[in-house]
């Protein structure tokens, strides 16, 4: 079964605005990964953050991890219409190095 959820489930913003998506989890992790999915097909890896890291950046993306709250956030700054997609977080559990635990995703719509 999946643990943790992304919120919000859906987000609609205007181009240029920032988008923040959150992900929570229940058990200890060794890393957490964010992926983007366009049109219900293949996922693209965005950022991997390890449990001993608190923040990572990649271009307009910023990921934070708060292990005390068991939560992570993905911030997309200065959003573009091309950022419209579903965003998933995947948790790498400390006790099982094979499987990622996937949330249900946040559907982001960036309106031009």
């Amino acid at each position, binding site marked *: 079964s999946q643990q943790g959820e992304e919120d919000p489930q859906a987000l609609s913003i205007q181009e240029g605005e920032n988008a923040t998506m959150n992900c929570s989890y229940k058990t200890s992790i060794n890393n957490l990964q964010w992926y983007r999915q366009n049109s*219900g097909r293949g996922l*693209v890896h965005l950022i991997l953050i390890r449990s001993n890291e608190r923040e990572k950046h990649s271009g307009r993306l910023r990921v934070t991890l708060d292990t005390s709250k068991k939560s992570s956030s993905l911030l997309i700054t200065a959003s573009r219409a091309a950022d419209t997609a579903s965003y*998933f977080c*995947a948790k790498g559990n400390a006790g099982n190095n*094979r*499987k*990622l635990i996937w949330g249900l995703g946040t559907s982001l719509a960036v309106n031009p």
Partner: protein
Amino acid sequence: GAGVSQSPSNKVTEKGKDVELRCDPISGHTALYWYRQRLGQGLEFLIYFQGNSAPDKSGLPSDRFSAERTGESVSTLTIQRTQQEDSAVYLCASSVGTATNSPLHFGNGTRLTVT
């Protein structure tokens, strides 16, 4: 280099027929995963291959589902006697190491429709 390739991209089949889905991972990637994604849902783990180790089949939903992989090459996912509830996108992913240490590279999936 080439990414993960899946075929066919779309498959429509009649209930009760068998289907075979194919995944070509990135060369050199020892780990290979199959996931199922129903419409509007997250990813459901099906099976994991790591090199020549015994696969982790714990996610296969029934004995109608099976998968094979020879070494670090192509994998096939077979669904026998398909049911309408099998309709979904089947995604394959590969990685250099284990999923919890290295990012997954996904194919574009096979959209299976069982009529």
